[in-house]
C-alpha cells in the first residue's frame, strides 16, 4: 500500500497546477462579486452565479481533492450522496413553493 500511495502521488497534479487552480479560483471569486454589483446582470444573476460556483466546486474537487486522477471508486462514493443531496434540495424547494411548476402541469 506504500506503493499505492506512491502511485497516487505520482498521479497527483504538480505544484504548478495547484497554483494555476488557485489563480483561477481567485479570478472566479472576483467575477462573482463583480457580477453581483453590476445591475445589468440582475436578470441572469442566479444562473451566472450558480455556474461560476459549480466551476469553483469542480476545480477544488477535481484537482485539490484529486478526484480527477484518483481511483474512480472515490468519485462514485462522493458523487452519489452529492446527487441525492441536490435531489432532496430541489424536491424541498418544490414542496415548499420556492420553485413552482407551470399551471396545468
Amino acid at each position: 500500500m506504500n506503493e499505492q500511495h506512491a502511485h497516487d502521488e505520482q498521479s497527483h497534479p504538480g505544484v504548478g497546477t495547484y497554483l494555476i487552480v488557485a489563480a483561477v479560483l481567485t479570478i472566479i471569486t472576483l467575477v462573482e462579486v463583480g457580477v453581483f454589483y453590476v445591475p445589468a446582470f440582475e436578470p441572469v444573476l442566479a444562473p451566472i452565479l450558480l455556474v461560476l460556483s459549480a466551476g469553483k466546486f469542480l476545480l477544488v474537487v477535481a484537482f485539490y481533492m484529486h478526484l480527477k486522477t484518483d481511483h474512480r471508486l472515490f468519485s462514485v462514493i462522493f458523487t452519489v450522496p452529492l446527487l441525492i443531496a441536490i435531489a432532496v434540495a430541489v424536491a424541498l424547494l418544490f414542496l415548499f413553493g420556492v420553485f413552482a411548476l407551470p399551471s396545468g402541469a
Partner: protein
Amino acid sequence: MTTHADAMHHTSTGLDNRKIGFWVFIGSECLLFGSLISTYLVYQGKSVVGPTTQILNIPLTSVSTFVLLMSSLAMVLALAAVTRGDKVWGRVWIAATAVLGMIFLGFQAYEFNHFVHLGLTLRTNLFGSTFFVLTGTHGAHVLVGVIWLWTLFVRSLQGKLGPDKAMNVELCGLYWHFVDVVWIVIFTVVYLLR
C-alpha cells in the same frame, strides 16, 4: 512504533480503507450540508421581522472566502511537501493552512458579533435561525479542521510526519477541501443569491 507498511495491508479493492472510509464520511457530510442549505432556502424571505439578508457584508465575506480558498492551496502544498519528505516546508504549509483557517474563523466571529449587535440572533426570525445554524455548523467544521492541522503540526515537530505518514495529511486535506467547497456553495447561495 508501527510503520506505514505495517499499518497498511492488502485490501480487496487495492485501495487504502481509511481513504475509502473518509470519502464515505464526506458523502454523509454532503447530505448534512445539503439539508441545512435546503432549509435556509426554503425559509428564505418567509420571516421579515428584524434584520434579514440586507445586513450581509459582501466585501468582508469575499475576503474571508479568498482566505479559505488560499488555505486550500496551502493544504495541497503541505501534502506535496510531506510526500516528498520536505519536513520544513511541510510544517510551514500545515501551519499556514491552520493560520488561514483561524483568520477565517476570526472573520466569522466578527460577523456573528456584528449581527448580534444589529439585533439578529438565532431567535429573531427564520433568517437568523437558518443562517446561524448553517454558517455556525460550517464554522464548527473549520474549527475541527484547525485543531486537526495543529495536531499534524505537532506530530511534524516530533518528527513523526514523514512521507510514510503522508496519508494522514491527505485525509486531513480531503476534510479541509470539503469544508472549502461547502463554503463555496454557502457564499453563493446565502451571500450572493438573495
